[in-house]
């Protein structure tokens, strides 16, 4: 019974073509699916400078549809081919905002019901005839559950000196349904791995908080059927739209239409696309990636769970020695000295600290795993990839520094009740110290953590959490040991007046940390953002001094405090947009010797028989910066690189970068630094230590074939 139906469809199709071509053309073509009519709107007659609009009016049978300029996953846009007297010119179709037409797993963009596709007609100045003869050949694809390509020849005669306005209402409705640009609306798109990150500002205020429809005019870029992951950030609409894995286009500009339900037209705007489009097929690079994925990097693969836990404990202990934990370590030393006389309190504090550290690690790991499950390509150091987090930490460390420097006491800032609460609960204090230590330590993935973390993120959730808990336990272990064995604690100096001096001294590592954070922020958002942050820090310091400074009278304190609060609010208003803006230029990763990393670059060099050294780095990674300024700046190392013609590539992870995150995952790591040396033709690189020594690099280079 299937064939006859097929024949009927075929017959209908042939019939439709016959109907269109056999008779002398008129303004109307009717097929079983649509009634199409060539219509015109010339309210002042036809003459140069007078408004003349033409259009194809399509009435679809119920459930049949034709397509928008970007038809989506299948379908074809309707085309109009005009035959006009000399000098006349028909404009492009002014497409009304389409509807989303889901079809199983596919998504199309098109129209049902009644549709007018208008075009503007330009009349030449020398036009003086009484009538205007129009001819049009239109092609459209009309689909329901089957698709039928149809076409029609249309003819229409317009009086030049009389008004043509029979379809005025249809043209008015069509004009109202055509999306228009909005002067203040602007948007941009950033290629973010396998997704397009959109940010649109200046949309109508009434749209805020509502669900938006997004129609890209460029076909073949996004997964049309996937719903964008979207949210409103104040007045800005922010969304992640997955890219089509079989993407056919890599545009630098993407015109698109935005609308909300109930809106006839919506807003048309052109998104400037930033970021490099991932390569689509063809090159050797993805193939090499496939080979390498089959044989993961040596350190990650063979570790069993027990070994990973042991590594995690050791790695956690060594974390205490990492530069970015040091300021917090100094806080801890202060804590020891304060409680050295009370053993039980000390031990309890040690345990509370351990609980704080382990809980934070587990919480962070849980968050990491949840985000991974959510498909976000994030790595361990992701906290510091957000300018907001960096700015927040800078504020926090400035506060701590000012406190240590004696500008204010926490007791004088907090209500008495909270202050005494804090005193009565030293355990809570220790717990919070543990949490703070973890927050600061996270970006410093130390040498031994790399493999554990790489494994952990690939493990089932429970095991992964166990690894992270072990890491936390390792980090807290020295503190716990010192609190449990008096011998360790007793080795510490007695409390005394030196503590005040030491406390003041400790303010400087805090301020040094702030310098580092400002530098990181500068890398992320540029010098304006860094200056804005510094301004905010000055305002914060002023506020703290105004409120907490000793010797201010009540009135002075109130006046200065108000002024300080206003200053701080103003500074924050100044800072916020700077933090949102992204640095247009890539960070200065590429210089004469180092080039920007990309998987294609590695594959190309390997194909040409060149060895490749990749420095996976980030501005916020202190270990990375240390290596960069020591070993990787060493003349001996650079001479060896040059002698062996090694291509030097730098993968900068300062800001989120999905390609780098994916590559780190592939190498079994989830943080930086990672140093990878690819021998010519080898799919798997040799990974070098994270605290890079000159001898190690030269040894690895000497071992190259």
């Amino acid at each position: 019974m299937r064939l006859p139906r097929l024949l009927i469809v075929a017959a209908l199709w042939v019939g439709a073509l016959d109907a269109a071509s056999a008779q002398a053309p008129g303004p109307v073509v009717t097929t079983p699916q649509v009634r199409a009519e060539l219509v015109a709107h010339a309210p002042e007659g036809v003459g140069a400078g007078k408004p003349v609009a033409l259009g194809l009016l399509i009435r679809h049978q119920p459930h049949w549809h034709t397509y928008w300029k970007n038809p989506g996953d299948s379908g074809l846009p309707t085309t109009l081919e005009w035959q006009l007297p000399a000098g006349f010119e028909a404009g492009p179709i002014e497409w009304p905002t389409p509807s989303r037409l889901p079809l199983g797993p596919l998504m199309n963009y098109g129209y049902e019901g009644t549709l007018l596709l208008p075009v503007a007609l330009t009349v030449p100045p020398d036009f003086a005839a009484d009538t205007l003869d129009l001819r049009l050949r239109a092609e459209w694809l009309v689909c329901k559950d089957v698709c039928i390509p149809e076409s029609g020849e249309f003819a229409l005669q317009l009086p030049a000196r009389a008004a043509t306005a029979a379809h005025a209402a249809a043209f008015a409705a069509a004009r109202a349904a055509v999306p228009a640009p909005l002067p203040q609306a602007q948007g941009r798109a950033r290629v973010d791995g396998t997704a397009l990150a959109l940010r649109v500002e200046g949309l109508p205020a009434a749209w805020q908080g509502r669900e938006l429809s997004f129609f890209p005019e460029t076909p073949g870029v996004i997964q049309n059927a996937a719903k964008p992951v979207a949210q409103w950030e104040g007045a800005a609409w922010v969304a992640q739209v997955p890219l089509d894995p079989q993407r056919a286009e890599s545009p630098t500009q993407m015109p698109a239409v935005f609308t909300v339900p109930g809106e006839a037209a919506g807003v048309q705007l052109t998104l400037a696309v930033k970021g490099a489009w991932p390569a689509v097929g063809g090159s050797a690079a993805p193939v090499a990636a496939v080979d390498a994925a089959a044989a993961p990097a040596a350190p990650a693969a063979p570790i069993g769970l027990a070994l990973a836990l042991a590594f995690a404990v050791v790695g956690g202990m060594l974390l205490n020695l990492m530069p970015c934990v040091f300021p917090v370590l100094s806080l801890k030393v202060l804590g020891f000295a304060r409680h050295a006389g009370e053993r039980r309190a000390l031990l309890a504090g040690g345990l509370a600290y351990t609980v704080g550290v382990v809980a934070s690690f587990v919480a962070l790991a849980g968050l990491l795993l949840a985000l991974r499950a959510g498909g976000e390509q994030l790595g361990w150091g992701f906290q510091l990839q957000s300018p907001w987090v960096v700015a927040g930490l800078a504020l926090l460390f400035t506060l701590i520094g000012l406190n240590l420097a004696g500008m204010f006491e926490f007791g004088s800032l907090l209500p008495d009740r909270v202050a005494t609460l804090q005193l009565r609960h030293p355990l809570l204090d220790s717990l919070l110290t543990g949490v703070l230590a973890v927050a600061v330590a996270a970006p410093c993935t130390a040498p031994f953590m790399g493999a554990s973390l790489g494994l952990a993120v690939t493990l089932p959730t429970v095991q992964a959490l166990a690894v992270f808990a072990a890491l936390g336990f390792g980090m807290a272990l020295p503190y716990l040991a010192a609190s449990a064995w008096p011998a360790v604690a007793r080795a510490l100096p007695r409390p005394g007046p030196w503590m005040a001096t030491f406390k003041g001294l400790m303010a400087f590592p805090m301020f040094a940390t702030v310098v580092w954070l400002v530098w990181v922020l500068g890398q992320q958002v540029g010098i304006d953002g860094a200056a804005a942050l510094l301004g905010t820090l000055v305002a914060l310091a002023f506020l703290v001094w105004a409120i907490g400074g000793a010797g201010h009278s009540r009135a002075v304190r109130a006046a200065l405090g108000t002024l300080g609060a206003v200053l701080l609010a103003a500074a924050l208003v100044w800072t916020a947009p700077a933090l949102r803006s992204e640095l247009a230029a890539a960070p200065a990763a590429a210089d004469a010797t180092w080039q920007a990393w990309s998987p294609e670059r590695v594959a190309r060099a390997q194909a040409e028989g060149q060895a490749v050294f990749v420095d996976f780095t980030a501005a916020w990674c202190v270990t990375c910066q240390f290596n960069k300024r020591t070993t990787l700046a060493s003349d001996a190392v650079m001479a060896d690189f040059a002698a062996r013609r090694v291509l030097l590539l730098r993968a900068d992870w300062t800001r989120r970068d999905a390609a780098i995150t994916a590559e780190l995952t592939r190498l079994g790591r989830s943080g930086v630094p990672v140093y990878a040396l690819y021998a010519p033709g080898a799919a798997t690189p040799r990974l070098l230590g994270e605290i890079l020594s000159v001898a190690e690099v030269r040894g690895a280079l000497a071992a190259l074939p």
Partner: protein
Amino acid sequence: MKLILTSLSLMALAAAPAAAWAAAVGQPAPAFSATDTAGRTISLADFKGRHVVLEWVNPGCPYVRKHYESGNLPATQKQATAQGVVWLAVNSTASEHGDYLPPGQLAAWMKARGAVPTATLMDEDGQLGRAYGARTTPHMYVIDPKGVLVYAGAIDSKPTANPADIASATNHVTAALADTLAGRAVATPVTRPYGCAVKYGGAG
């Protein structure tokens, strides 16, 4: 109850695309196993070391008929298989859809038009189609001997239903095969497929 079922199936549809469009050019082609019109089980793994073409077909689609009735697709198949290429036509039309042809009728339809695919696969549940992200008929894929997808897209460069356009169009599949058979990277690895939507189950 119906409302619940509807919303459940809507949720399933909304969730589907994330997992569905797995195939990407330059990546390993998704493995599959399917039954052909003669009842044989055909797996991609059977053809390791050979070039494989996948062609989504639906005789109910005017764009498919354009390329069969003009002899374009049969000729492309003939040329490819003569060079040792494995050609698998795939029909992902759901059995409840009006366009659906049972295996025997589909094979007869193909044969009557001189088609010479290595096999014609039945994919009524659309699994194979979804794994490759096939959206239109025709939608063409080329897989190299290493099992890597090297081409995805249209049969040729003129997205119309008019057979007269075939002569002046570039056949993307022939071009991709010429490149990959010669060991070169495919010059145009991705194009936009055109044609009717694949009639997956639950569609329309």
